Structure formats: structure tokens, C-alpha cells
């Protein structure tokens, strides 16, 4: 997938580096390969891939607001957790995966509407602090409200319920391979939605908000309302990610609402490249894999993560995808630069008087 960067929505839509049908074919092949993985993978590997997909959703939802909209939220765990708990309640009451996911998304979106209403009128650090504060509020609620949330223990015994309804014809999801495929399908649908969204008029306005919110207002667009819409969308997508956790692990705990969870999509986006479309996907994969590999050898996985991040920020600005794309552009430009530089020197430049 081509990292869209921040350049030229209109131009990119018209002519991109890859022809349209070729790009669609490549994406289709990739999705097909993902769906075929259960044929040759063990359940641990499927777990890992499902976790990557979930963090991908979480990070892409977050990055809609951050990389494309220019608003850094430190409280997205609240929406993730709202999705996870709501889906957990529903699945325990009535085992229908679809119902659980839809209910979780609605809850996360509604919470996003409330938090967003108060937050989007502020900028920069104030926005970040407000979302952090709301996130901590939700965390203490989840943690202390024993009777409803199960407190410290969280919700346990969340079933990997059939897709539609219990009984015959409800499409069972219990095998981890089947559930993994469900997660992949949901992720692909959301990613496709975002791909289209960022190439829509709304997407270009969103980037305008990142670049210069005041000028968007003076172009005749109600800037706060647009920010709020983006915020709710972002929260809802984080919520979708949350709904997928419970059925995978059979449990949802209060740590889903902790601010350390809010940091995960931030890290994934920065790692992969926040200003690119596919950055959060790459970042999510790296984050889950690094954590998994390092945890086998040492409990200090955060140390390793820290080192990787420092190296990336110092060495590869723009994350993995952004950095590589820039490198690619530079090497390509370097070939033609030699002749171009000569062109700028006028043939007979007049000398100056002493």
C-alpha cells in the first residue's frame, strides 16, 4: 500500500504511483492470504495475528484524529474499554457476536460524543490533557464500580459467541481460526472505510484542520463540528477494536481503560508513521511482535521498546513507512538531481563590478 503522506489528496486520487487496478489486486491478494493463514498456523500464531489486527484498528482509529486531524488524544483507552465492556455485557447476556460488536461501537461512539463535545474546542496540549483526564475518569469508574464491571477482576467468561444467534444457522465462532477470520474481515472493512474517507471531501477538510484550523473556519466550514465528527468516528473505531478483545481472551479487565493502554495507539502510530495511511498498521504489527519476542527473554520489554522508539525518532523521522517513503523519493530524485542542478545555473552569468 502506498503511504499517502500529507500530499495531494486530489492529485493522488487522480494519478497514484501504482495503477488503480494493480493496487486493488495487491490489496485483495494480501487480504486473501490473511484469510488463508489458519490453514497453516497454530493457535498461538493466530492469537498473535488477531492481537495485531485489534491494535491496528485501535491505532487507525486514533490516528484518524492524530495523524490526519492534528489532535493528539491521550484518552483513547476510554473508548476502547467502553467497547470492550459493553460487548462483554451483551455477549454474557445474549451470545451474538454481531450484536456485541454493534453495541460496543454504539457505546464507544456515545462516550466519544460526550468527551469530544468538551475537548474539541481546545487545541494542542489542552486537548491532550482534557482527553487524558477523561480517560482517567473512565478508568477509575471501571476499576471502582465493582457491582457492574467486576472491579479489579473485570468481566470473566465472555463467550466467543456465534456471529448471529445461538443455535443452528448462527454461524459458530468458537474455533480460534474462525474467530481470527472474523477479526480480519472487520479490520479490512474498517481500513477500507478509512481509505475511502481520507480521499473524500471530509478527509481533505480533516487534513485542513490539522494544517490550519482557523483557515478552515474562514473557508466557511464549522470547524468544531467537523472536529467533533472526526472525534466520534475515531472513538467508535477504537471501540470496535475493544469489542474484539473479550471474545478472543474470554475476559476484559480494567487495564483496558488504563492510560498505558491509551499510549499503545500513540506508539503504534509514531512507530509506523503517523502522517501515512498504512503507518499504524505497520506500527501495530511491530509493537505486538517486539513485545512478544522480547517478553520471552526478559520482563523489561518496555526498555527494548524505548530503545527502538528512540532510534526511530532520531534516525527515521516519520516512522517506518514515512521514513522509507522519504528515502525512496530521495533516491529516485537523486538520479535526476544531477542534471537539474546544472539547469539552474545560467549559461552566461554576468559578472559583477568590483
Amino acid at each position: 500500500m502506498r503511504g499517502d503522506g500529507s500530499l495531494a489528496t486530489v492529485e493522488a486520487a487522480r494519478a497514484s504511483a501504482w495503477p488503480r487496478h494493480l493496487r486493488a489486486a495487491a490489496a485483495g491478494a494480501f487480504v486473501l492470504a490473511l484469510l488463508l493463514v489458519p490453514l497453516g498456523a497454530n493457535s498461538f500464531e493466530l492469537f498473535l495475528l488477531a492481537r495485531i489486527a485489534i491494535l491496528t484498528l485501535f491505532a487507525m482509529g486514533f490516528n484518524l484524529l492524530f495523524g490526519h486531524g492534528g489532535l493528539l488524544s491521550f484518552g483513547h483507552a476510554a473508548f476502547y474499554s467502553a467497547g470492550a465492556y459493553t460487548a462483554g455485557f451483551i455477549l454474557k447476556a445474549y451470545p451474538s457476536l454481531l450484536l456485541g460488536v454493534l453495541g460496543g461501537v454504539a457505546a464507544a461512539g456515545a462516550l466519544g460524543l460526550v468527551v469530544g463535545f468538551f475537548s474539541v474546542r481546545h487545541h494542542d496540549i489542552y486537548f491532550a490533557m482534557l482527553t487524558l483526564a477523561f480517560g482517567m475518569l473512565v478508568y477509575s469508574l471501571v476499576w471502582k464500580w465493582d457491582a457492574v464491571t467486576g472491579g479489579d477482576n473485570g468481566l470473566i467468561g465472555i463467550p466467543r459467541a456465534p456471529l448471529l444467534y445461538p443455535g443452528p444457522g448462527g454461524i459458530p465462532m468458537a474455533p480460534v481460526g474462525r474467530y481470527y477470520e472474523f477479526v480480519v474481515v472487520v479490520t479490512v472493512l474498517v481500513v477500507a472505510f478509512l481509505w475511502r474517507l481520507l480521499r473524500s471531501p471530509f478527509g481533505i477538510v480533516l487534513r485542513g484542520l490539522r494544517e490550519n484550523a482557523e483557515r478552515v473556519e474562514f473557508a466557511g466550514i464549522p470547524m468544531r463540528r467537523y472536529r467533533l465528527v472526526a472525534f466520534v468516528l475515531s472513538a467508535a473505531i477504537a471501540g470496535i477494536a475493544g469489542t474484539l478483545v473479550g471474545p478472543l481472551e474470554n475476559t476484559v479487565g480494567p487495564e483496558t481503560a488504563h492510560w498505558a493502554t491509551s499510549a499503545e495507539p500513540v506508539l503504534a502510530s509514531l512507530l509506523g508513521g503517523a502522517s501515512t495511511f498504512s503507518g499504524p498498521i505497520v506500527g501495530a504489527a511491530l509493537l505486538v511482535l517486539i513485545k512478544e519476542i522480547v517478553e520471552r527473554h526478559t520482563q523489561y520489554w518496555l526498555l527494548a521498546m524505548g530503545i527502538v522508539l528512540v532510534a526511530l525518532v532520531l534516525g527515521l523521522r516519520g516512522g517506518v513507512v514515512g521514513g522509507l517513503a522519504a528515502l525512496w523519493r530521495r533516491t529516485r530524485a537523486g538520479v535526476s538531481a544531477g542534471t537539474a542542478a546544472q539547469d539552474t545555473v545560467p549559461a552566461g552569468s554576468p559578472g559583477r563590478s568590483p
Partner: protein
Amino acid sequence: MTPLLRVARLRKAFGELRAVDDLSLELLPGQFACLIGPNGAGKTTLVNLLTGRLAPDEGRIEFEGRDITGLAAHARVRLGLARSFQINSVFPQLTVVDNLAIPVLARLGRSGAMLSRIDRVPELEREVGRLLAEWHLEAERARPAAALSHGTQRLLEIAIAAAARPRLLLLDEPTAGLSPLEKSQVLAQLRRVAGTGETTFVLVEHDMDIVFRLADRIIVMHRGRVLADGTPDEIRANPAVRDAYLGGTVAGPTAERPGSAPPGAPLLTVERLNTFYGQSHVIQDLSLTVRRGEVVALLGRNGAGKTTTLRSVMGLTPPRSGQVLLGRRSLKGLSPHEIAQTGVGYVPEDRRIFRDLAVRDNLLIAARAVGQRTDGDAGHGWDLARVYALFPDLATLERLRGDQLSGGQQKMLAIGRALMGNPQLLLLDEPSEGLAPAVVRALAGVVERIRTEGVTILLAEQNAAFATLLADRAYIIENGRIRLEASGASLRAHPEALQRYIAVEGTPEAG
């Protein structure tokens, strides 16, 4: 005819300063009005009040008979009241096409569409294409706005405002910093749009040439009030306007200027300087000398390399090769703050004052920041009192915050701040840009005084009239190279020699 805009008893104060003071005004559809007045008269504040960027303390604004006093800015744009900004306010990382697509989508009512592809929005491509052609931006369509020269960004700035196809368009100093060619492009386009009769214009403008050529009505503001309002001929004949704004008699170029001491030893020596921005070779083998006690002008068009030369000297854009000497000391490899400590003061074009600090603190912090000069020279002992003596306005405004000053006052502050660092060499980037004619003349006097107090000056300008008024010598720069070196006297005698390179016009009409 019912007025398009009606303003009744509008007031806005910033602390003690009454920026707009009980102002009433009516505009008829189809008018082309210019809003002029000295820096700090309240012109930009008025534009901000009319467009909803600021809320008035008192008063009422009606647009097409409707009360819009409390309406949000975006809603006013939808009603047909758009504006451009004095300081470019574009979308830096977006391409020119995307910059224009945003206001066009808003006008078409399609800005909220989430699932339609941007290239399939009916009308969008045609409309953006029309704007690109009209504002001479076709060649730059796929470049990010941040990569454009100041002049081209200026065109984009106006084009974004015009994209809303407003009934009333307020342009805040649209031609500030434009080359003569770009100026004439903008003016031709404004005339064309005005000719259709769809749009009523209000221009805030300092270039009297433009004002008297374009306007069918001139509104003169002074201290937050309307000082005069009438046709160009009426304004030209109005004695109060002459005193307050156009200035008295012109302090015309004189061959013998008082206080010019014979130049001393070279203070700044630049040899074979080469500076790059990424791949582009912006400064090419540039050499120049500024002797102690001189005023030297670096003249050239937008994008000629004037600012980059100053930035290279200051260490802000380190040169790739070449030599920069202050006296006998090489500045190469020094960081900007170290260069400041050797006694070089820099006033950037965009002023860069501390917006949240009071005027006084802006000045004091500069004195501290430079701190001990490392060249052993005590400097010229600049302090608050001396800066206030030079700029009496700053003394009266000393408690105001930086962002409450007008553009011109900020410029004064930036110069004052540079002086607080006790420079032996002062680098001034486009000091006359955006200043009212009377203020430009006052500024010429200020520069002259700074020089007589022992500070050497290198100024970058595209206003040749202003620069040659002051300069002992001038270098003409084009495409990053020095094309010509001449004495100030010879340029004053033969201004046509500059025609090829820069603006010779733009001399304010004194009436």
C-alpha cells in the same frame, strides 16, 4: 440602494487601547473601497470584527440587512462575507490544489461528504481549475503550499478567500511583499472580479499607487475612528488626511545626508557563499562587504535570495561553503545565538516577536538573551530608554501584549528588540514592507539615526525607493547571485538602472 454592510457604533478595546472606537460605516454593493490609515489605526481589528475573528465590545454589524454581530465566522462566510489574512494563512503541507479544494467544497456544500471520492465531486475540478488559471497558480498545482515563494503563497492566500465567491471580500494588505509583476497580476484579477459586479471589495492597503488607481471610495482610519471617507480626489485634497497619513513634505533623497561618516574598515565580509535548501542551490558564490558605519542595501525580487543571505550570515541557514567574517573573526560553524553574541542583530521579515509578552518584556528579554558580548566590545549601550526615545510609540504601548500590536508596531518592536542586544551590525529583512507611507518615511529617519549612533546596517529590500534613500551602497541580487554593485548616490541619480531587477515604482504619492 440598501447597503450591503452596515456597521453601527462598533467598539473594541484591548486593555487601555481603543482599537476601534465608536465606528459607523455603510458599504453599498459593487463598491471598491480601500481602507487606509497609519499603522495601529485599527484597520485589521475592524476586519477581524467584521469577519467574526474578534467579538466587539459594543455595536452592531448588519450584512444584507441581517444582524450578524453574534454570528460565527464560518456562518458569515456562508452568507458571502470572506476575507484574506495579512500574514499568509494557507495549509502549508497541502498542495495548492488541495488548498483551493477546501473553500470550493465548502461553497458547493460538499465539504462533509465522507464516502464520495474527491475526484468525483461534480464541479470541484472545474472550479479549482478556474481558480488556478485566474490566480496564475497552474504551474504550482501539485506543490505543497509551504514550498512556494512568499509571493506565490500570497496569491494562494487571496485565491482561497476568492474561492468562496463572496458578496463582500475583505483583503488585508493583499499585495504586501509582492513583486511588481505579481502585484499587477493580483490587481488585474481584482479588477476583473470587480468588473463582474458580483463582489464588493474592501482592501486594506498601504501602497498609495494601488489605492488611488483602484478605489472608488477611500476610508481613512485613525486611532480607531474614521478620519475621512470619500472619493480618491476628496481624500487627496483632505488636509487632515495629509497630516495623519500621507505625511507632510517628502524627505526626498538628498545627495548629502547628515551624519554619514566616511566608511571604515570592513565589518562584514562574505566570500563565495553557497547555500542550499535541500536540493536547490539558493545562494551561488555570493560575495559582499559591509564597512563599519555603512548602510548597505541588498536589493532584489521575491525569491532572489535576500532573506537566505541574511539567514546564512546569521547562521540560521548554515551555508555549505564560503566564508563569513565579522571583523577578522569567522562566523562559520557558529550557532545563531553565538553569532548574536558577537554583535549581530537580526530583524526577520515576519518579525517573530513574543506574542504573549508585554512590549517592555519583549525588549528586556532580548537584552538578557544576548547577554555578555563575546567580542569584548561593550556595544553602544542600548537600553529601554534609548529604544523608547527612538520609537516613542513603544513607550506608550509598553504594557500591551505583543499580539495586541498592529503589524507596523510589531515591526518597530522587532527592530527595538534587535537593538537591545547592542549589535555592531544590524540585519534588517524588508523593514518597509507593510508600513504606511508616513511610517516608511519615519522608518528611514530611524534607520539613519541608528546608523549615526554607531550601528552598521545591512538591509534586504525590494522597495528600491526606500532602500536607495538610505543606502551608501547597494548590491543587486538575482537568482542567488550578485548582479550589480552601485553606490547609493548613483542609484538615486539613475533609478532606471534598477528597472531590470526590481521595483522602482512604489514610491508613495505624497499628494
